[in-house]
């Protein structure tokens, strides 16, 4: 059986991110995810430093490691020089490499991120492309965005850009450049990670009896992973000492 801790130690972010934790809680005290989700970065780091394979495997399959928002507020404060946020990044990478991420509802969402942001990088040379931010899928973007989206040529022209132009904001990234990116992804393991996410997700979709397509987003499994919420993720404010503590949420 592979030693998961050793595998984690190969990730330089993990090596940087975990020296030894004394459980002071300074990270959890400042963590936005700890306020919103049932999440405690201190506990995650404490579990990881047991170096126990079973404990780490459980973490890799759990919802827990997907709650962090990578704000890195923890890095600023930790008195032992740890960074729970970087430990999380290493755990997430390993979870995807090993296919464990599909065991959790939040973990399965990685498929959506790969198909949107991930594919955008290699197809367009951007993480986010304006014509992809469909107001119908993003009502929170509001009327200003909806107008801009529907009148992008006119709006951009006024601001000094051109959608898919030669230069400037939202210019077209030419094919030879995209080929360089693709090549970089192949050489550095980026494509391997994309493939691992795709393969595990396809398997999971089959297991769950859901429709899966090898391209695009218009199918059952994709729609499921972006919207599923079993309601168990958020924290319940049980303020035992209401007289003293402000409510956490």
């Amino acid at each position, binding site marked *: 059986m592979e030693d998961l801790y050793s595998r984690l130690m190969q990730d330089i972010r993990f090596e940087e991110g975990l020296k030894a934790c004394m459980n002071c809680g300074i990270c959890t005290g400042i963590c936005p995810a700890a306020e919103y989700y049932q999440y405690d970065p201190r506990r995650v780091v404490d579990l990881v430093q047991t170096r126990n394979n079973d404990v780490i495997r459980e973490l890799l399959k759990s919802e827990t490691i997907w709650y962090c928002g990578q704000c890195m507020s923890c890095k600023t404060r930790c008195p032992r020089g740890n960074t729970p946020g970087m430990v999380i*990044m290493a755990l997430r990478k390993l979870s995807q490499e090993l296919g464990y991420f599909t065991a959790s509802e939040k973990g399965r969402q990685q498929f*959506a991120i790969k198909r949107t942001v991930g594919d955008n990088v290699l197809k367009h040379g*951007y993480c*986010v492309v304006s014509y992809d931010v469909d107001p119908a899928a993003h009502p929170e973007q509001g*009327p200003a*965005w909806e107008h801009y989206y529907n009148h992008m040529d006119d*709006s951009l022209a006024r601001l000094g850009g051109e959608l898919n132009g030669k230069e400037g904001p*939202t210019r077209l990234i030419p094919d030879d450049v995209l080929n360089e990116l693709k090549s*970089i*992804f192949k050489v550095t393991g980026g494509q391997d990670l994309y493939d691992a996410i795709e393969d595990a997700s396809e398997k999971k979709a089959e297991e769950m009896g859901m429709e899966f397509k090898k391209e695009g987003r218009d199918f059952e499994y994709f729609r499921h992973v972006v919207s599923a919420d079993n309601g168990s993720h958020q924290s319940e404010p049980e303020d035992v000492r209401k007289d003293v503590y402000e409510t956490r949420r």
Partner: protein
Amino acid sequence: MYMKPEGKKRIWAEYQKEIPDDHFFYVRSCIRQTFFAGSEQCFLKILRDDLGKDVFEDPRHTTCTGIGYHGDVVPFETIQAVVARHFSLATEAGYKHIAISCVTSFGIYTEILETWKHFPETLERTREDLYKATGRTFDVPETISHTSDIIYKFRDQIARKAKYNLVDINTGKPLKVVEHIGCHYSKMFPKSGIGGAEFPHVLVGMVEAWGGDIIDYPERRHCCGFGFRQYLVQANRGYSLFASRKKFESMEPYRPDLIIANCPGCTMFMDRWQYTIKEMDGISYGADGKGIPVLTYEEVAGLVLGYNPWEIGLQYHNVQSMPLLRKMGIKADPSERFLARDGSRLPEPANLING
């Protein structure tokens, strides 16, 4: 209010970083290009036209893949090589100073340079990877700055050219400004941010140079809530909304006139979530109780220099800036906000705040 400014000044004096004077290699931001294209163009115009600086842009540069990296779909080795490719473009063009538009990018470039410094084998590996993938070589740049660092550096020159100030012309009082710093600007490497991580000075310096007053409030350092995957995936968006809301409720007692942010994502979220909260709960924040305009520092610099608000893109925010413009004495015709290329009027969006 209940603060001793000397204490903050002492901290700011300790965290002064080197920002170059000229000759920048500019790399754009996915979010800023998409949502605040006018901001990026405004930055370039200010630097080139108002300040006479050399800012070079190679159109072959791409995303740094930062959102993918923090969305955990792009490995660290990959992003190092993508960033190294940008360094290669800069080296080709003869530039040693990188000007970075996105705060996530800035955090990543800083993280990469720090990693290369402490683990030289990672730099060697990246050189090999980039060469193998593209045949490119590169020099490590001398400096990297966020574009807000650069505007900060020239804030006094901008102040001298200012046509408008961050002052309410009706009362003569400075505007009350909330400054919001993107988490990845200095939380990871406090020395890489002007003023450090606890009391960053990059936006404070701008606001004060242009006549405004800064508000400190309990949730000042709280993340806006982007959270990468926490926004990208629809099921997680509550996290993002919750974080911004926390900030609004914390700043509300101080009745801010304006929020200025250096990260494009933060600017976008704090604008969008005000709209969402209004739609969901009918609640609005701010001095007028009608929403707090959230501007990029480029937009604020542009207003101060007298640029046309509609040409820098203020109309494409959900919280419209009219109350702010009125306070500053900037005359801008709201009917000229939404125009087509040929100057004809486009249908105005409904439900804008302060629309």
